[in-house]
């Protein structure tokens, strides 16, 4: 039957908790060995593997009914994971449902962070790797290429990717609303907390001009600065040097504020025409609230950023139905093209006509 000729099996964040995903994640060596094993697996004519931190998924075209189970068994054996245990977390989709899943993954509808675009690149890499080892054929080539086209269409026709949904990316988006580009933006990370570090990395990845780190423990600041390719600044110089920066990310665990309105006002006298953006991620807050009333100074705290991220998440969620409707048309069209190909495979192998 044709609906069992194309399949996707695997596990992802919907059903498998992080402890399980850690065990299922394919390392580079295991991935290479498994690819070689699957290439010689009886009944499996085409396959591609999507292996990310949130999912391990095998897309395949089977020329006999047991091929998907053989893939599962080979994977579990390679990962030394009990097959029966895997069954508790397994996703197993066949036929049109497998296609629907693939395009939803490509759009980011199936992602933990709804509408994220990184998965699209990961899927493209997975397909490119499968092509390189010649494990794709006419069916998967068509399916993946059409899935990419459908994803681009849906992303450009809906607001599924509009607005940032993580604190760090919301902070970067706000900075872009102020400075236009980060090419000349100098970032000052005050405190060495995890969320501050993530935010600083987000700024770096978007091309910030420079990054300086300061922490109450200078050795911690120097370690982090080395790790991030930044420079370090003694903590007691933080207020005197504020005028040298455009974006100040605060995430200390200090019991009180560490940046005063007076120091900010003094800094703005040195750079009145250039805006200064404070991102206060600390609890209790690091920046005096009065800072917000100074001309050309913008202050956002953790709640402000979380609220924007939540609004963006809600806005994306409101687009899901529209995305699915658009995708359904594409998937129907794709299924009509793929079905005869699968029937032909089934016919060649004598496994009966398509359903």
């Amino acid at each position, binding site marked *: 039957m044709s609906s069992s000729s194309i399949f996707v099996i695997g596990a992802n964040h919907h059903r498998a908790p992080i402890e399980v995903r850690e065990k299922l994640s394919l390392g580079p060596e295991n991935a290479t060995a498994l690819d070689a094993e699957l290439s010689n697996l009886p009944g499996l004519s085409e396959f591609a593997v999507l292996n990310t931190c949130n999912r391990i998924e095998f897309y395949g075209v089977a020329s006999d009914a047991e091929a998907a189970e053989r893939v599962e068994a080979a994977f579990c054996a390679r990962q030394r994971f009990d097959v029966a245990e895997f069954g508790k977390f397994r996703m197993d989709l066949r036929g049109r449902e497998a296609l629907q899943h693939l395009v939803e993954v490509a759009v980011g509808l199936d992602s933990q962070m709804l509408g994220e675009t990184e998965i699209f690149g990961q899927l493209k890499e997975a397909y490119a790797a499968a092509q390189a080892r010649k494990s794709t054929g006419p069916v998967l080539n068509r399916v993946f290429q059409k899935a990419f086209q459908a994803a681009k269409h849906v992303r450009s026709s809906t607001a599924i990717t509009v607005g940032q949904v993580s604190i760090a990316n919301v902070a970067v988006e706000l900075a872009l609303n*102020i400075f236009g580009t980060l090419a000349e933006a100098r970032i000052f990370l005050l405190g060495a907390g995890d969320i501050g570090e993530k935010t600083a990395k987000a700024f770096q990845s978007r091309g910030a001009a420079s990054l300086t780190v300061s922490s109450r423990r200078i050795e911690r600041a120097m370690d982090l600065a080395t790790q991030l390719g930044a420079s370090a600044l003694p903590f007691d110089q933080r207020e005197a040097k504020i005028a040298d920066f455009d974006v100040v990310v605060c995430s200390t665990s200090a019991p009180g504020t560490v940046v005063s309105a007076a120091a900010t006002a003094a800094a703005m006298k040195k750079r009145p025409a250039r805006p200064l953006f404070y991102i206060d991620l600390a609890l209790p807050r690091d920046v005096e609230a009065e800072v917000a009333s100074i001309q050309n100074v913008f202050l956002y705290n953790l709640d402000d950023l979380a609220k924007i991220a939540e609004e963006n998440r809600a806005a994306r969620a409101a687009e899901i139905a529209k995305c699915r409707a658009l995708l359904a048309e594409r998937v129907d069209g794709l299924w009509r093209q793929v079905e005869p190909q699968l029937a032909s495979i089934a016919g060649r192998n004598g496994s009966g006509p398509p359903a």
Partner: protein
Amino acid sequence: MNRAMLEILTDREWLWGGAALYLAGFLLGTVSLLKGGRPSSIVMYCLIAVGFVLQNAGLAERGHAVGGCPLGNNLELFQFTAWSAITLYLFIGVTFRTSLLGYFTACLTAALTILSLSIPAWDATRRAHIFGKNPWIEFHAALALFSYGVFALLALTSILFVLRIYSLQSKRIGGWFSFLPSVLDLDHIGVRLLLAGVVLLGASLAVGSVYWLRDPAKVGAGMLITAWVWVAYAAALAMRIRGKLLAKRFAWTCLVLFAVALLSLPLIDASRHPAPAADAGVPHERP
């Protein structure tokens, strides 16, 4: 477009056509924003460009009729100011890459052109040959009005700036606020436009002063009002450069100054001596 083609419609009909397209651009943009989408910049640009062609036809026909640059009454002054703003938007607005600039330009020019066409008194007197045979005075007047177009665009940029600041301070960056340019981009555009406007109006006054200095008795209130407008804008520019007038205050100052500049146009028109050909019967309708 030759004279015969222009006369297919009256000058006012051409101008109404232009105004209608500017209004269409504004309404289309409003609908897009209300639906939560971005106004299509291509559609907006096309509507404004076609409106501009129609307005050009109207002004050209009017220019043929009055024998010079049509700046002889309030309708013509407002139309020319709108025309200048549109010219700037079409030719340099794209380089600013401010996505809502087209929408706000359509809004302002629709308001200016429809207002000017809707008040019959503003077009009751048509002065022909108001610049006599002196092309420099005509150049002075045209340049002064063109600088008002620059100030119009500056006012629009200032509105965008105020909205952007409001969005950031009220912590509402989604919806149509997401289409606004950044604070720094708007600030840079504003300073450049102010500089351009001050230079153009200053050049206009310099050209005019050569003529008026020869005959000080002819210096009218209009010239003095224009000079005061220039002084006010030049003072704003000086304060901005010295860092004394920044951010929201700078934007609000530009908005207030443009309102004053616009209000000065009827005063300038009222202060003009009746031109010799004022009652010469410039045709209002198609012959």
